[in-house]
């Protein structure tokens, strides 16, 4: 197997190891659409990064976080239903990103790569970034695990027990933004949420505890990456979508198992 395949595979495994456990919280907190909105804003982050000659990953993290911070108070005000707001911001920022990129005719970028991922263009530096970033995200998530779980079950109960709910919520948003920036390389902006929710959802029927769901979410994500890349290698299918299709097939198979 070629070297670039090895790098892609390592990067994919690293991303799956993080997006599985974090994705569990996205599923438990019903934040799939929220995550999607943050991810779509990622393209605007890429455009801003290119415009300002800044690091693109940083651009994605910053824009995703800003979107989350704008969304939270808007959702609390409840003038519009949550999904309406998410839809507006999700498509609005994606389109804005495309428009801004359109203005920069001097920059030639691989738009399809950003939208659907270009795992085969992963560099050694990317892999190191994913391992380091992923390690940071996982260790923070592990520290916040119990309070975050309690908040997910009942926010006021967590508050009454002294959990700093607002602060943990912000950190959680930041973790999602980081994972989105990492995952973007693998499956692209449009498919990022699938790596968060499909492996986690596929793990549900196999487990009886939140921790096991996180572990199996990571393992199923890794399996999806491996199967998707193999398909991509042998049948020349697009890598990002192949990974997502593999995850979906595993999810559908998991439905055959009765819930524990």
């Amino acid at each position: 197997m070629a070297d670039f395949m090895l790098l892609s595979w390592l990067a994919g495994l690293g991303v799956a190891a993080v997006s599985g456990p974090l994705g569990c919280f996205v599923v438990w907190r019903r934040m799939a659409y929220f995550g999607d909105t943050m991810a779509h804003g990622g393209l605007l982050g890429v455009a801003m990064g290119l415009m300002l000659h800044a690091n693109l990953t940083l651009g994605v993290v910053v824009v995703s976080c800003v979107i989350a911070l704008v969304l939270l108070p808007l959702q609390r005000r409840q003038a519009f239903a949550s999904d309406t707001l998410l839809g507006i911001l999700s498509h609005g920022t994606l389109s804005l990103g495309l428009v801004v990129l359109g203005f920069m005719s001097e920059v030639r970028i691989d738009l399809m790569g950003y939208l659907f991922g270009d795992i085969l263009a992963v560099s050694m530096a990317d892999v190191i970034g994913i391992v380091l970033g992923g390690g940071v995200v996982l260790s923070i998530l592990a520290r916040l695990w119990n309070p975050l779980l309690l908040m997910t079950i009942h926010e006021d109960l967590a508050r009454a027990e002294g959990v700093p709910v607002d602060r943990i919520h912000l950190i959680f948003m930041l973790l999602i933004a980081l994972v989105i920036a990492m995952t973007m390389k693998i499956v692209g902006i449009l498919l990022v949420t699938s790596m968060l929710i499909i492996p986690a959802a596929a793990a549900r029927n196999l487990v009886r505890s939140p921790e096991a769901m996180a572990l199996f979410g990571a393992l199923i994500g890794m399996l999806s990456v491996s199967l998707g890349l193999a398909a991509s290698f042998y049948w020349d299918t697009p890598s990002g979508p192949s990974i997502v299709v593999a995850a979906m097939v595993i999810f559908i198979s998991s439905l055959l198992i009765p819930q524990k």
Partner: protein
Amino acid sequence: MTAAESSPNLLLAAREVDYHLGGRKILDRVNLQVHSGEIVTLVGPNGAGKTTLLKVLLGIHPSHPPQVWRKPGIRLGYVPQNISVDSVLPLTVSRFLKLGRESMGAIMETLELTGVVHLHDAPVHGLSGGEFKRMVLARAMLGRPDVLVLDEPVQGVDYAGEIELYRLIGTLRDRFGWGVLLVSHDLHIVMGATDRVVCLNHHVCCTGKPDHVSNHPEFKELFGDHVVKSLALYHHRHRCDDHGEHVTLKRESPI
């Protein structure tokens, strides 16, 4: 410090609590006291601010300036109103109790006390309403509270289960000497199982022994005459059996 607050039995007090939400005044100079060993029940119509008052007392809604007094070092246990666990979150009963630092021994002991120890390994989302409430009660007890705060503890529990649950709360109160503050809709059961009733409709309408409160004109106005009459009937029946001691007042704040 007033005379009442110098009482060594006083655990938790709301003092002239005002609370606004979205420009609306939810609580208007509310005073409330919970002493050790006492069951205080908060009644009032929907939207009267009962849950808000509990949240202010628990510190979920901070009050500025602080209008809540807590005896230094006391711990509060909380059983919230609308708590449910989605089936997509895999959780067993004992894991639900283990979200803190509790040991397995303490967890089993507490589940034993609330009568659901046989369910310790059962998935949370398969529990009945009553079993679920007992699990949440056990979780609140695990923190060894001095005051237990329960918001509509019998919501989603059938009638027989309601009586059982109130009896359990009373028994545990006797055993551990907690102060108990609870919100309830069900006047019939509440009136029989409580030491002091506080009737809230944004402000405190009346407070006192169940008998006293149910004869208060403002209480009658809030709940309607037919409810009050049926309460009287209930009391009459209730006293005929040997639960008469339920309505005995433990201690009333000096007026």
